[in-house]
């Protein structure tokens, strides 16, 4: 039988970056094919090519034997290729049924929809409530709606791009089961992920990408876990920092960080922080937390449970409606960002490009933007001193840049993040460091560098609050882990306690309350 999807010698270049190079990929009907790779390995580019969001530069694609070269997603959909994107495309104000009809345009009438959805529910065990407004649904159910939306079109090939990034452990299991059932009906499923644990639970075959090239491919039964890790990162599993291995979901139980013998004095206090929302329940529903010097506290949770807003309130981007945030006894609840910085609050923001740095400006300018006053000479800016200071930071933090004057957008994501970290850690004194998704989108080397710096900050006596969706990362890094759930912080869970992972998983879904 012909393969469902076949790529031969596919290449794609963006500017000077070779995103994909001579990639071969064969996906058979009836199998779940995992495309594995680190961030930046070319997984998303591959998805975009297959779904028609980007055109390939060289090579060819075949869909069930026929030459396949979609010029836009609509064409891919017509040919039976459906994709579940990492970020959902549902209209929150509408109901599930309305969203499904919207996707189907005029081809489906509301009475028929009920029947079709019923059939899908029976075939795949994927139940959705057509009358429910999307805004009120938890993320896992929204994703089910996305998948139903795809299945309504009766696709021959289903692509899922990092579908588990926003899900809790139980939801991940349900999703993988669904993938299996879809494959069993004779369709082809391509699951794009960087988590090895998922691959083993759901996949039949795998193709591993590294640096835009195929590092290995074949039936999953032919690979050991160690071999997959080696193919993905080009290093042996045993050589990896346990933290990094945990990030890949490659080891079941990462070694937890040894808890601090004596916790220091409390540095920061959060009391009853509340942030109202114009529509729906409060985004922050009374957050209480005490952070001690030298302690690393993690906040886990499914995205959208208030953790981003908590960081925004603490960093001064949003203003809390109620409650108090104190640092060293000083009330900073409504203080301007500059005052917070002066009080010793360092923030590594969640969205690097949005508020972490100014990508159009140079490394030196980004490092010293908040302290330009120190670089004034005769009323003018002392660029020489800035350059020298930046060169020191670049060397100290191992930032790979062509020089202190290099615009930040010429640096890789990991090196941009190192600039942000270098800037925030340079605060004197640094009393509280807030790191929001500090390793998101970074390659392994950069993850290691950033996390080492975060640990160092704690070792030097700062209190550290890490918000991350990488549970394994939190378990190895933190002294205690809180779980954000519907605007509140549940827990704490001690990372070294037996069953900590399951306990956190339960809290994430609100099952423990």
């Amino acid at each position: 039988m012909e393969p469902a999807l076949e790529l031969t010698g596919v290449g794609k270049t963006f500017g000077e970056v070779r995103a994909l190079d001579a990639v071969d990929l064969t996906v058979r009907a009836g199998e779940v094919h995992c495309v594995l790779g680190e961030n930046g390995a070319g997984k998303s580019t591959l998805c975009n090519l297959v779904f028609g969001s980007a055109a390939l530069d060289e090579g060819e694609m075949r869909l069930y034997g026929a030459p396949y070269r979609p010029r836009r997603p609509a064409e891919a959909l017509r040919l039976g290729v459906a994709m579940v994107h990492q970020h959902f495309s549902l209209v929150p104000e509408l109901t599930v049924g309305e969203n499904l009809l919207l996707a189907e345009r005029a081809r489906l009438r509301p009475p028929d929809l009920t029947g079709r959805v019923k059939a899908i529910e029976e075939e795949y065990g994927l139940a959705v409530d057509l009358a429910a407004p999307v805004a009120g649904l938890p993320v896992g159910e929204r994703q089910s709606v996305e998948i139903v939306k795809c299945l309504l079109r009766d696709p021959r090939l289903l692509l899922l791009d990092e579908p588990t990034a926003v899900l809790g452990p139980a939801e991940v299991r349900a999703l993988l089961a669904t993938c299996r059932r879809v494959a069993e009906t004779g369709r082809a499923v391509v699951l794009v992920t960087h988590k090895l644990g998922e691959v083993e639970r759901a996949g039949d075959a795998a193709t591993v990408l590294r640096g835009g090239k195929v590092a290995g491919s074949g039936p999953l039964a032919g690979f050991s876990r160690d071999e997959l890790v080696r193919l993905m990162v080009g290093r042996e599993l045993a050589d990896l920092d346990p933290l990094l291995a945990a990030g890949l979901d490659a080891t079941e139980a990462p070694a937890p960080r040894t808890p601090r013998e004596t916790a220091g004095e409390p540095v920061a206090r959060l009391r009853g922080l509340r942030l109202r929302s114009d529509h729906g329940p409060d985004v922050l529903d009374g957050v209480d937390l005490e952070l001690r010097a030298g302690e690393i506290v993690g906040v886990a949770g499914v995205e959208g449970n208030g953790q981003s807003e908590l960081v925004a309130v603490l960093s001064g981007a949003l203003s809390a409606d109620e409650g108090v945030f104190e640092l060293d006894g000083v009330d900073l609840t409504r203080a301007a960002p500059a005052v917070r910085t002066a009080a010793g609050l360092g923030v590594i923001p969640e969205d690097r490009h949005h508020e972490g740095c100014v990508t159009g400006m140079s490394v030196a300018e980004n490092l010293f933007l908040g302290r330009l006053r120190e670089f004034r000479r005769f009323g003018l800016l002392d660029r020489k001193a800035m350059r020298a200071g930046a060169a020191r930071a670049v060397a100290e933090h191992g930032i790979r840049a062509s020089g202190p004057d290099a615009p930040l957008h010429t640096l890789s994501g990991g090196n941009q993040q190192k600039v942000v970290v270098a800037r925030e850690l340079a605060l004197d004194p640094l009393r509280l460091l807030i790191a929001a998704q500090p390793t998101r989108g970074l390659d392994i080397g950069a993850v290691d560098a950033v996390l080492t710096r975060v640990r160092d900050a704690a070792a030097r006596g700062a209190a550290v609050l890490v918000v991350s969706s990488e549970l394994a990362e939190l378990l190895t890094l933190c002294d205690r882990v809180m779980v954000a759930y519907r605007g509140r912080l549940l827990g704490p869970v001690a990372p070294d306690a037996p069953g900590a992972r399951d306990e956190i998983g339960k809290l994430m879904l609100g099952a423990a309350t």
Partner: protein
Amino acid sequence: MRRDLLVYGGAVLVAVLVGLALAAGGGAAPDVAGRALWDGMFGSPYAFGSALNTTAVLALIATGFTIAHRAGLVNVGGEGQMALGGIAATAVGVSLPAGTPAVLALTALLIAGFAGGALWAGVAAWLRVRRGVNEVITTLLLNFVGLCLVLLAVHEEALLRQPVTSADTLPQSEPLVEAARLPLLGPPESPATIAIVLAAVSVIVAALLLRHTATGTRLTAVGMSEPAAARLGLPVGRLQAGSLAVAGGLAGVAGATLIATVPYVLAEHFTSGYGFTGLVVGLLARGSLTAVAGISLAFGLLASGGINLQLAAGVPAASVQVVQSVLIICVAGAVIFRKGAAR
């Protein structure tokens, strides 16, 4: 860089061809039209002098535009800010006592012009920073209010209108006192005033400010990423409001120089659309103050050349505006085209 030259060169070539076609349509042979245009630019001290005066006005407005633009704001209110600057300058210029020394009078006049324009832009700045109202809309609409205020001022005797002695009294202000008039640069028969010096100084100071001071770097940061600048503790609102006020202030100074040049009165429509032309100069210069200086000069020369084109060759002066518009479309189109291709 080479591409930029190619774009500007190509745009000029297309514009020249369109201009020649228009001249031919107007019944003038290309060489006659060309000579008339040239004479209007460089042919006499008078022509070149008035070109310099226009250049100064455009450069002042475009410099302000560039400063605000660095902070991410688009000031389309040059016309209204000029109007208010002109009104304020007139109010000072007609009421100074006769014996005031020229240095003092001129300083007072220019400060009044700056303050008038800055206040007018300040309205938009306040709305933007405190209320989040888009400054493009507010500055644009304030233009019309500003122009109406000029009408009001020159029609009301209680305001700035000269005393009405007969039915023929024009609706305009009294002439400025002698000391408040801008001195001429010097060459005989040239109407060029020291406005061009003032504009040159503004361009140089602005270039220094934007490139070599902490304030300039902060403005750039705010313009490139407001959230990041706020996170780093920069006073985003103050920087934005300040840059827009300075933009308005410079437009106000431009208005003041118009009032303090022949015929030294505030009259209806004294702004003659310079505010919008200055905006176009700023847009075409794309953040470069060197380009602001160059394009202002080119536009100033074209304006005075166009007048002579009509006088000497009988080609409508409006054809120069058509040529300018073609220039703008070419340059702007090339920029958009290249951005689209890079995506």
